């Protein structure tokens, strides 16, 4: 492609929109201008997260397997260069920079209120120019080892990964995003270059900028800095995941005042990923089941069984999905029992039209609000791109959602045979 192809996507409710650019380099670029804002937020992401441990390049014959934690390791290393590291460069222009690795992506970001162009150049430059040697890789093994230790002191983090470990037999979502001390010790500079060349191909990445900028400004810099990559795509492979769980209860001892718990239902689906409609329907179900306006929440609160940390989420991604209830409780087993009981009741009575409309209104309000936050917008654009969704489609889905669809989902979900309860509590003497 020799020209950029620009489309403007507008939303009638918000009366605003964003540009979607098929850049001539092969990268997809999104620009959501907010001229009234002082800040600008940019995020450059690759669809490469902790679960991508087995893959094949389109120009290679065989699948490669890499140690757990490689995506996160690479994220750390990209900040370095032969001269000034990215932080030192941002310091000169004034920006707050960061990066994160999740299960399915790695993102580099910054936010600033001035010198956007310079900051944006730094972002595009360092993400496109990896630099590491065996020596710097070794040094990083020590630093990340410490980081892994620090997360081992975090009860919520441990509780979640213990849950996933008990829930999944083979899926790499069960392994800590940062890997283990053992797995990261196997990482070499060559391996990092190979992963970089596979996953940091522009066709596997997305760039989004939201805030005080224009599409012209973004493209001027992108045009001058981004060269097309070789035509390579990546194919991921996952081991078959059985429908069964590993074990239904798991406990770890850490110094916590109130025990921390996570209670989830492993789901099996015929398709790899959940649709936006399914995700929204499930979050409505979870809100009606256990949200702050639910009878269950009031009962648990009145009985002294949960506190304000109690929450729900529909945890899902490629080949994994699980509604999870989590929080702190002196008696997690009873909490899990009450959740099961409430689900059984709701499956009998089903969700009423009134409940549904109330929660739908709440969802609509939350979606509107999300569009004022440039952090959410820029990250949302990148995530939507990776999931092949359009950012505004959420409004349509909420508007068109049918109660019958939600109730059908409720009846199918929450299989009592696949529940896992994970508890982190103080050692009992």
């Amino acid at each position: 492609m020799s020209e950029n192809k620009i489309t403007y996507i507008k939303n009638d409710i918000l009366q605003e929109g964003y540009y979607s650019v098929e850049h001539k380099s092969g990268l997809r670029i999104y620009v959501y201008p907010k001229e009234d804002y002082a800040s600008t937020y940019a995020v450059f992401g690759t669809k490469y997260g902790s679960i991508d441990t087995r893959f094949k390049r389109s120009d290679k014959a065989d699948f490669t397997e890499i140690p757990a934690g490689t995506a996160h390791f690479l994220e750390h290393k990209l900040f370095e260069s032969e001269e000034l590291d990215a932080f030192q460069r941002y310091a000169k222009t004034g920006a707050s920079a960061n990066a994160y690795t999740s299960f399915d992506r790695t993102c580099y970001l910054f936010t600033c209120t001035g010198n956007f162009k310079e900051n944006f150049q730094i972002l595009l430059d360092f993400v496109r120019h990896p630099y590491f040697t065996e020596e710097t890789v070794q040094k990083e093994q020590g630093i990340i080892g410490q980081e892994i230790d620090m997360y081992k002191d975090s009860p919520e983090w441990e509780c979640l990964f213990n849950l996933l470990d008990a829930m999944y037999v083979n899926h790499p979502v069960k392994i800590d995003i940062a890997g283990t001390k053992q797995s990261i010790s196997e990482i070499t500079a060559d391996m990092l270059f190979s992963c970089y060349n596979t996953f940091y191909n522009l066709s596997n990445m997305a760039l989004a900028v939201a805030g005080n900028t224009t599409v012209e400004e973004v493209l001027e810099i992108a045009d001058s800095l981004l060269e097309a990559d070789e035509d390579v795509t990546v194919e991921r492979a996952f081991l078959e995941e059985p429908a069964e769980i590993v074990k239904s209860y798991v406990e770890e001892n850490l110094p916590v005042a109130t025990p921390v718990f996570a209670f989830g239902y492993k789901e099996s689906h015929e398709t790899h990923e959940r649709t936006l409609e399914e995700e929204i329907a499930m979050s409505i179900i979870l809100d009606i089941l256990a949200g702050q306006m639910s009878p269950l929440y009031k009962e648990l609160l009145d009985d002294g069984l949960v506190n304000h940390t109690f929450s729900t989420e529909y945890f899902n991604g490629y080949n994994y999905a699980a509604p999870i209830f989590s929080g702190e409780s002196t008696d997690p087993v009873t909490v899990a029992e009450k959740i099961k009981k409430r689900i059984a009741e709701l499956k009998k009575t089903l969700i009423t039209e009134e409940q549904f409309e109330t929660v739908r209104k709440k969802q609509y309000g939350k979606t509107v609000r999300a569009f004022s936050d440039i952090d959410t917008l820029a990250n949302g654009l990148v995530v939507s791109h990776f999931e092949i969704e359009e950012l505004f489609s959420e409004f349509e889905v909420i508007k068109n959602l049918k109660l019958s669809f939600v109730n059908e989902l409720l009846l199918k979900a929450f299989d009592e045979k696949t529940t896992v309860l994970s508890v982190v509590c103080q050692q009992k003497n």
Partner: protein
Amino acid sequence: MIFRKKLWKHLPQYDNILFILRKDKEIIGSGKMKYNFNKETVSKGAELCNITAEGFKSACVTISFVLPLGEKASLYALVPNVLTRSSAKYPDITSIENKLALLYGAELVADITKTGEHQVLKLGVSCIDDRFAFDGESITAECSKVLFELVFNPKLQDGVFCESEVESEKRLLCERLAAEVSDKRVYAKNRCEEIMFSEEAYGIHRLGSVEAINKITPETLYEAYREMLSDAKITVCVSGKTDYDAVRKLVADYTENLERNTVTNKTVFIETANDVKYTKETEPVKQGKLVMGFRMGMADADDNYAARRVMVDLFGGSPHSKLFTIVREKMSLCYYCSARMVRAKGVMFVQSGIESYNEEKAKNAILQQLEDIKKGDFKDSDLKASIKALEDSFKSVSDSPEALDSWFMSQCVSGGYRYPEEFIEEFKKVTREDIIKAAQDVTLDTVFMLEGTAEGGESDE
């Protein structure tokens, strides 16, 4: 989709920096979005602030009560929680939450903070802008009514708060305190403050203590509530495009019959530390935590603030700071290491996560960085970078009504409301000499070390 999905992201080393900036309430929202700040006094001593701005997707209304920080801290801290649990009109949590859901998912907040030696209780509601309502109703006016009902018209039983709800909220507050003990980073910081300010009111935790919470009864709590209504400085703040007149009327209606007798107090500033207090504890955790508390030589919150704030950023507030680039990156002594200033008390804290056997080395390295600044051993480019970083974060204040509320209400204790731009102008004037002078005013007061006794990770075996 991230609107619903929790972002389980591994935020590594840099997370610390953002954390510090956010805690300072300085990354909050600026600049081009046109907004105006006004205040007036409505009825008996209730101050009403109005931040008008158009174009936002949300609006918010908050009520702040400023009280002296003292032995009643636990009682006062429990009040906002009980008020948002039920009211005469909304008898339980379910009916409140149902009402908020129908108001397009409006959010209720009850926040307790410590500003110098004051305890600030803030109750508020934030909602979507009226233009997004389906039937053209005023969401902000309706949300304000809910908020005022909750705060000024509680559900009573025999003339006091409802016992079962008080007991339930006592448990919840105790568990919040307990969670701060579990989080060793927070615990170490809290212990350092407790030891450093054992002779000052500032040593009291913003939520008081578990012992004090356990002694609360519906009677004593109701008495504290009445005191709050009469003694506290009350500030109502309305931000966004709102029905201001409707809120003004609510303030007048709900406060006109209150007996007002505002109590004021002044935060004690101790400029210089004498001896260094040292305390060490052990816990079966993997990573050790070292916290150091310093006096900054300030006579009051405005005493040469700009220079000191820039100095703290240069010392340990940014990714280009000495603590980050030298102690953490170059010497690999700390997993995280940063400095934070508490302007309202004239002190600074350095927090770090270390291998316990590195305690002495880390402590010496941290102090050495401060010595180097005192000697003028820092680059002009780093000074510039610090000023820029502060400019950047102060400018972003105007990007949301919640951020504007947060910015202006963090000044409600003194009531001398200043715009972020005024601070930025002062930062820009800070010179190398000012930084050296500010660093020379700093003295070490307290060191708290939490030694980790748990074994390391799997590869050590």
